[in-house]
C-alpha cells in the first residue's frame, strides 16, 4: 500500500483543555498513482488531515504509513528529507515569494539539496514543467507582475520540481476564476496520470473533486465515501 492512515485522531487543546476533536480514529488507504478528493464543510479538518499526511502536523493518535513505513518514527531531519523527496504541496494561495522571479520561486525547493546530480535533474525537470504548464516565457517575471492563474501554475511546478510521489493540494483552485480553475485542474490530473504522482486534494469544488478516482467526505472526524454530485454541506 502506498499510503495508509490508521486510526488517526487529532484534537485541539487550549491550556490543557480539549476544545475540539477534529479527526477521530480516521483511516484511509491510497494506492500509488491514485487521485483522491476529500470534501467537507469548512472547519471539518480537511487541511489538518492534509498537513498530517504531509508530515507538517502530527496526529494525537494513530499512524501514517508511507509505503508501510511509519513516518511518526522519523526524526526532524528525516521528515524534512521525506517531504523534500516524496511530497509536493499546492495551497489555495500560491505563496510565491514576491522578491524572487518565477524561476527562482520554482527553484526554492532545490536550495537545501546537496546531491548535485539530483539537483540538476530537478532543475531540468523544472524547466520541462514550466514549458509544459505554459509559463516558460514568464519565468523572469516576479509574482506581482503575473496573473493568479500563472502564479498558481508556478506553485504547482514548484511542488513538483523535486519529483514527489505524493502531491497534496489544499483548495488549489480556491483563489482562481473558472477558466484558470479548469486549467489548473487539468494540469493536476494530467500530472497525476502521466507521471503517476499520487494526488490527494482537498476542495470545495465538487466538479473538481468528481474527477478523482476516489472521493471522501470528511464529517465528524471520519472519512466517508462520497458521490461527486451530492451536496457537501
Amino acid at each position: 500500500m502506498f499510503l495508509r492512515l490508521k486510526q488517526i485522531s487529532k484534537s485541539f487543546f487550549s491550556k490543557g483543555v480539549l476544545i475540539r476533536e477534529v479527526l477521530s480514529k480516521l483511516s484511509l488507504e491510497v494506492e500509488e498513482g491514485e487521485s483522491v478528493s476529500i470534501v467537507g464543510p469548512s472547519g471539518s479538518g480537511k487541511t489538518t488531515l492534509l498537513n498530517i499526511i504531509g508530515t507538517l502536523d502530527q496526529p494525537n493518535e494513530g499512524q501514517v504509513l508511507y509505503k508501510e513505513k511509519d513516518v511518526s518514527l522519523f526524526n526532524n531531519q528525516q521528515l524534512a528529507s521525506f517531504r523534500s523527496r516524496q511530497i509536493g504541496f499546492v495551497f489555495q494561495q500560491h505563496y510565491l515569494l514576491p522578491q524572487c522571479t518565477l524561476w527562482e520561486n520554482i527553484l526554492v525547493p532545490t536550495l537545501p539539496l546537496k546531491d548535485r546530480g539530483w539537483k540538476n535533474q530537478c532543475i531540468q525537470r523544472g524547466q520541462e514543467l514550466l514549458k509544459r504548464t505554459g509559463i516558460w516565457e514568464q519565468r523572469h517575471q516576479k509574482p506581482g507582475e503575473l496573473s493568479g492563474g500563472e502564479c498558481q501554475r508556478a506553485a504547482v511546478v514548484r511542488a513538483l520540481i523535486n519529483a514527489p510521489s505524493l502531491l497534496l493540494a489544499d483548495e488549489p483552485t480556491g483563489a482562481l476564476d473558472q477558466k484558470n480553475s479548469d486549467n489548473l485542474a487539468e494540469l493536476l490530473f494530467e500530472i497525476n496520470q502521466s507521471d503517476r504522482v499520487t494526488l490527494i486534494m482537498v476542495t470545495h469544488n465538487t466538479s473538481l473533486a468528481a474527477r478523482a478516482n476516489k472521493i471522501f467526505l470528511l464529517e465528524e472526524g471520519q472519512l466517508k465515501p462520497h458521490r461527486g454530485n451530492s451536496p457537501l454541506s
Partner: protein
Amino acid sequence: MTSRQLIIQTIKHYWRQNLMLALGVAVSTAVLTGALIVGDSVRHSLERIVHLRLGEITHVISAVDRYFSAGLALRLEKKINAPVAPLLLLEGMASSDGGKYQIPRVQVLGIDEKFPVVTGSTILAMQHSEALISRNLAERLNVDLNDQLLIRIKKLSVIPLNTPFVSDANLITPVTLTVTGILADENMGRFDLKNIQTAPYNIFLSLEFLNEIMDAHGKINHLLIASKASSEIEPALAQVVSPEDMNLKIEFNEVQSSWEITSDRVFIDRVIQQTLESEPISAESILTYFVNTISFAERETPYSFVSSTAGAALQSNEIVINDWLAEDLAASQGDTVNLDYFTIGPLRQLEERSHPFVIKEIVPMSEKWADKALMPQLPGLSDVSNCRDWETGIPINLEKIRAKDEQYWDAYQGVPKAFIPYGTARNLWTNRFGESTTLRISDPDLSLTELEEWISSHIDPMQLGFRLNDIRDQADLAAKNGVDFSQLFLGLSFFLLLSSIFLTVLLFTLNTRTRMSQVGTLSFLGLTHRKIKFLWLTEGMLISLVGAIAGLLLAIGYNHVIFNALNSIWSDIVRTPTLETEITLATLAIGGGISIVLSSLAIMVSLNRLLKQSSHHLQTRTITQSKRWGNAAKNALIFLSGFIALALVVWNYLQTSFQNASLLFISGALLLISLLLFVHQTFQPVQDRQDLSSFRPQIFILRNLTHNSRQSFLVVSMFAIATFIIISTGAHRKDLFSQAHEKNSGTGGFLYYGEATIPVLIDLNEPEIRFLSGLEEEYRIVQIREYPGDDASCLNLNRIRSPGILGIDPDDFSGRFRFISKIRDLAGENPWSYLQSDLGKDVIPAIADQSVIQWGLGLKVGDTLQYLDEQGEILNLKLVGGLANSIFQGDVLIDAQHFLRHFPSSSGSNILLVDGDPNAQQSIGEELKGSLRNHGLDLQSAPERLATFNSVENTYLSIFLILGGLGLIIGTLGLAAVLARNLLNRRKELGIMQATGFTRAFILNLITREHFYLLLIGVGIGLISSIVATLPSWLNPSLEVSPLTILILITLIIGNGMLWITWITNRFLKGEQVVGALRSD
C-alpha cells in the same frame, strides 16, 4: 464611527507596536532633553560658583608683583562712593599635626572689616594669630575649631626678589595660627579671584596681623570693589593713587638742597624716571651700584658703593674718587683704577666684569661727596651695623674686609667712594628693574605736596602694572561661555539620539507597512489621501506625545544618573563635586518639542512615501520602490565622496604627515557615506534575466535583502555608524602612561613637573649651588618663569581669555614634545628656537598645547592673544605652534628673554622640569622635595600630570563609548524589530520552505545568514571608515591604539547582534506558527 474613535481603536488594537514606537520617541526625548538639562545644570553650577567665590565683588585692582598702601582703599572708596576692601593675598603652605598633613599652594588672605561688606558675607573679625580657614582645607588638614596649624607664607617683599644685591634668604615666614572658624562655601570659603570651578584652599587672617608678621606696614596687593559704575573706577584710581602707592619715597636732601625720590623697590621704574626727567621737573637720575673691588696697581678696596654724578663734568671713562679711597689705593689724579662688579642675569647668574676709569678728581669726604642718601636701601646691607653682618644676593668674601673697611662703614656707612658719569653707570649697571636708584629735583620752590600731586597726576598707575579687572563680568562671561555641556552631551549622545530616531522611523515604517492594506482599503472606501494622512499622522503624533512625556520623565532620571556620575566616577571632567541640577520648564518644553517635531517628521516622511504607492499596491501589499535619485547621480556621489575621502587622506599625509586629525575624521566620515551609498545602490532590487543553472542560498539571501532594501539599509547604516563611532572613539582612547618617558611624548621626556609656591631664584644646575643645596643625584632641572593667569587646561570648565604665561629657554626644549600644528616658519631642526624670533614691536611668538589653543581659548595657530605687560603696554602673543597633548596644558610658552623684557619684576622660577634617569626617578624626587622643602615644591611625576589631562579626554571618550553602547543596544533593538517583523511577514514563506523539505536548521541558517550579512556589512563599513579616520593612531608608534580593544569591541558588536538574531529566529521557528500560516480553513 468618528475619526477620533477610529484613531483610538487603532491605537488600542496595535498597542504593542505603538508601545515600541512610544519607547523609541521616549528614548530620543530623554537623550535630547537630558543633554539640555545637563548643559543648563553645569552652566547654573558654574554661575553659582562665581557667586560663591566672589560674593558681591565686581572689580579687582591689583598690581603685577607690586604692593601698595592699604590707605588707597579708603581714598578710592570715597572717590567712587562704593565699598572697597583692601586685601593682601599671599601664597603659602599649610601643615598640621606636626607636618603629618601638608597642603602646598594655599591662599593666605589678609583682610579687614571691609571684606564682609564688599563680599556680602558674614566673616567675623580675627585677632592676632587667629585664622578662618575654608572647609576643604580643614578637611585636608584634619583640623577643627581651636586646633592649630602651621603656615609658611611666601615673604612679602616690596623689592622684586631678583633685584641685584637683595638677599634671597628668609623667603618664607612661618607662623602658627589657631583656627577660630571654618568657612562654608556660602561664606567665602571658596573665595578665589581665578576663573576656575575648583575650590582653592583659603586661610584668612587679619590684614594688620599679616602685615605685622611680614614686617610690613599697611601693605596690600589687591583692592576688592563692589560697584556697578565700572567706567568711574579707573579714572578715580588715577586720581587717588599716591607716590607711596607707587613705592616712591620723597625726601628733601639738605646736603644737596634738593628733593630726592627713591623707591622701595631699589630701582626706580623706568616710567617714573622718564616722566620725572622730562620738563618741567627735569629730575637728575642717579644710579648707585655696589662694586666688588676698586683696584689700582697691587692695591684694592673691597665692597664699595659707586654712584653716578652730574656734579662734575666727566668723560665717559673718568672717575671721581674720595680722598679715603685715594689714600687706600695710593692713587692720584690721572691714575687708572679698575672697578670689578657683578652683573646679575636671570636666576642670579653672576658675571664679574671689570671696567677701567681714569681718576679725574679726588674729592674730600664732605658735603655732596659724603651724601649717605645716595646708598640705596637694601635689606641686609644698608640696615646692618657692620660689614660682617652683610646679607646680600651676591657672595661676599668676608676675608677681604679689613678693619679700615669696618671703620669706614661705621663712620659713613654706604657713602659712595667713587663717582662716574650717569651715562657710563647706566651702560654698565642697567638691569630689567630700572636704571636709576635716585631722582634728584633741584627746585627749592617746589613743595612736597606739589611734587606729590604732580607725580600722581602725571604717572598712569596702569603703566606701573596696576590692573583694573572687571572680574565679575569676566567670571560671568567665562561661566556662561564655559564648556557647553548641552552641546557636549548632545555630541556624546549623538549616536544614541540617532539610534532612537532611526528606531522610531524603522518601527513606524514597519507598523505602517504591516497595515498598508488598510490604507488601500480606506482609499477604496472613498477616503482621500489627505484624510488618511491626517488619521495616521494624528495617531503617530498622539503616540509621540505619550512617548515624549515619558521621555521627559526619563530625561530627569537620565540627568540624575549623569550628574551622579559627573560628581563621582566622571568627576575628572568637571573637577568639582558641587554640581547642582537645574531643570527649567523652558528646557523641558524645548526638549519635548524638538523630539515631537523630529518623530512627527520621521512619521510624516514614512507616511508620505507609503501614500505615494497606488491603492492597488497598498491593498495587495506590494510596494514599489520609488527612485528619487537616478543611478548615474548616485554613482557619481559614491565616486565623489570616495574620491574626496581618498584625496584628503593623501593630501593630509603629504602636507602634515597625518597630523591633522580632524581632516582624517572627515575623510573617514566621507568614506562611510560613500560605502553606505554603495550598499544602498547594491541593495536595489534588480531584474535578473539570466537562466540560473542553480539557485544558491547566497542569491536567495540577496533577493531577500534587496526586497526589503530600505529596512536592510537602515540596519546596515545603524551598525556602520555605531561601529565607526565606537571604534574611532576607542582608537583615540589614550594609554595614560605609554611611552611617557619618550622625548617626543607629551612629557617631553621629563621625569617631574614641579610647581614652587616660593619661586626659586637661583640656577639649580650650577655645580656650586647644587652642592650647597644638597642635590647630589645626576639630573638636570629646567627652570621656567611664570606669569600667573587663569588655567586654560581641560580641567577648567570656564572659557578663559588670559592663560598663564611661562618663560622658557628654547634650547631646553630642543627635540622634545611634538607639534600637532605650526606655522610654516616653525619648520627646521629646532622649532622651539623660533620663540626667540623678533616679530616686531610687542609681538612675541608663543607655543601652547593644541587643546589649550583649540578648546581652552577657541583659537587656532596663527591667531594672537592679547595681554597687558607689566608696563601697561599691549603685548601680543602670536601662537606659532600647537603641542600634541602635553604637560603644558593650561599655559602659553614664550621665550624667557621676551618674558623678562615684558615682565621685568618677575622673580625666579615657579615651574621646574626635571630631566634624568627614569630608573632613579624616585630618589631624584625625594631629594628635590627635601632640598626645596622651603619653596613649597609640589612635585608631580610628568607622566602622572599628563595622565591627569588625558584622563579628562578618556573620561569623555568613556562617556561617549557608554552612550554609544546604549545607542548600539537601541540599534540592536531596531535589528530585532526588523527581524521579528520579517519573520512575521514571511511566515507563509517559511511554511512553504518547511513544506518543501527545508529543515529547521537550514531555515535558521538562511535567516541568520541573511541578517548576519547586514550586520557584517554594517560593521565592515564602519570599521574601514574608522580606520581611515584614526590613521595616525594606527601609524604613529607614539600613539597607542589597541588592536585588542578594537577586536573586543567588534566582537561585542557582532556577538550582540548575532545573539539577538539567533535567539529571535530560533524562538520563532520553534513555535507552531509556521504550519498555522498555511492553514486555509
